[in-house]
């Protein structure tokens, strides 16, 4: 138990104490750390997909404009 708290300490110590007046809740805090990789990668995939779709749409539009000319 002590060891586990020691390992979490670097995270907990960095909290700006005066402002972080809310108790984040240990379960809520840990869940975010456990989900970090999943939600982070989903976000990256989504962002790249958006960028790709914008790029493809522009490309298609350019192609269309060229044909119309």
């Amino acid at each position, binding site marked *: *138990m002590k*060891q*586990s*708290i020691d*390992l*979490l300490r670097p*995270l907990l110590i*960095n*909290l*700006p104490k*005066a*402002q*972080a*007046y*809310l108790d*984040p*809740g*240990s*379960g*809520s*805090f*840990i*869940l*975010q*750390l*456990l*989900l*970090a*990789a*999943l*939600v*982070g*990668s*989903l*976000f*990256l995939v*989504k962002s790249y997909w958006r960028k790709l779709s914008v790029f493809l749409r522009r490309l298609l539009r350019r192609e269309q404009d060229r044909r119309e000319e």
Partner: protein
Amino acid sequence: MKPANLSQPLQASFRDPSGQLFTRVGVLYRQVNQVYRPHFEHLIESGLYQTLVDKGWLIPHEEVNVPPLQPETAWKVIRPETIPFISYPYEWCFGQYKDAALLTLNIQMVALEHGMWLKDSSAYNIQFHEGRAVLIDSLSFEIYPEGQPWVAYRQFCQHFLAPLSLMAHCDVRLGQLMRTYLDGIPLDLASRLLPWRTRFSLPLLLHLHLHAASQRRYAAQPPVIKRCMDKVALLGLIDTLEAGIRRLTWSPFTTDWSQYYQESNYTAAALEHKQALVAEFLDVIRPATVWDLGANTGRFSRLASQRGLLTVAFDQDYGAVEQNYRQCKQEGETHLLPLVLDLTNPSPPLGWAHQERLSWMQRGPVDAVLALALIHHLAIANNLPLAYLAEFFHALGRWLVIEFVPKSDSQVQRLLSFRADIFPNYTRQGFESAFGVCYRIHRSEAIRDSQRVLYLMEAR
């Protein structure tokens, strides 16, 4: 003799050490404490404040030279723009609640772009002002501490995700649970109440069901985790929360009252005459603020709000309030605020020492009260004596525009069809004598093509 203290603290803001709300000679101020100085400076210097104010997402404030409430901790005092009527999450319809949740997440995203984040995400920090949801707590921002999980994640899920999920997937009236659970609905309770199928929605699975399980599991014994939460992960967390909120929907078209005008026994002539009379009375009394009680979808509230009067339209039916709110949004109405309220059990004072959240009546009085097609529901369906009703309306404001619906009216006949008539005093004469105790009756006009009478009264 010691001079009287002109400044009074507001009990709704005692938790956050960053500052404190107080009133001075009736004006609301916010003390910003020394300890919050770097964060406040970053809010202004990073351009975040101006960006949010320009978008209409954050209440604007101005710095003022007013003595702080607690000079020993104070850095400066600001005066936020006044919100005419403070509403609470348990008074919002589904659409309002959803807009408040999305606003909180949008603000979090913009704050992260400026190197800050929300250090709290209380639903009580959102208000409806000039027809739009707005964040009223300028001290909710903090310099983003890279690598940290979101400190207000639990609060967001309890204050927004849990009530909205329950309203969308179980019953819209479960929004009323916020009255009982002032710090948001416990996630284990929400998880138990939600249908099993909600586990197939990734945002609800992660942020509600697994979140509740994680709280249960790690409450006493945190595990060994050698990780931090980088910014991409945090953005992903916000993004999945937003997707979850966006997918929650509720349709208002199935409740009793939202169809009232289509199904009621008003003829077109009666409706038109009633509207003309209400408008005429409003033009005579010229109030600045109006509460429309039993407002339904706001047909008569709009007679007031379209005259530029600040109008709050209360109804107990979620469907009617939802329709009203959608119309407000669609037409960009800035003077009308629809809210959910059961007049027979209005919002009580809540929280620590009953002082954190004001009761409904504490948020009055108002210049004029509209009580149209309402009295029979209170007097007959709820057995309220007419004298009690007169006292109740009298406490709310100076002017009263009230419609008397006699027993011969088909709506009252419907209320009496399955019960004994134990209301011998419910007559026009009985009504006038009960209300005559507290009011001077200025006008009484029979509504054309109906048996109803519209009164204009002034408090004695």
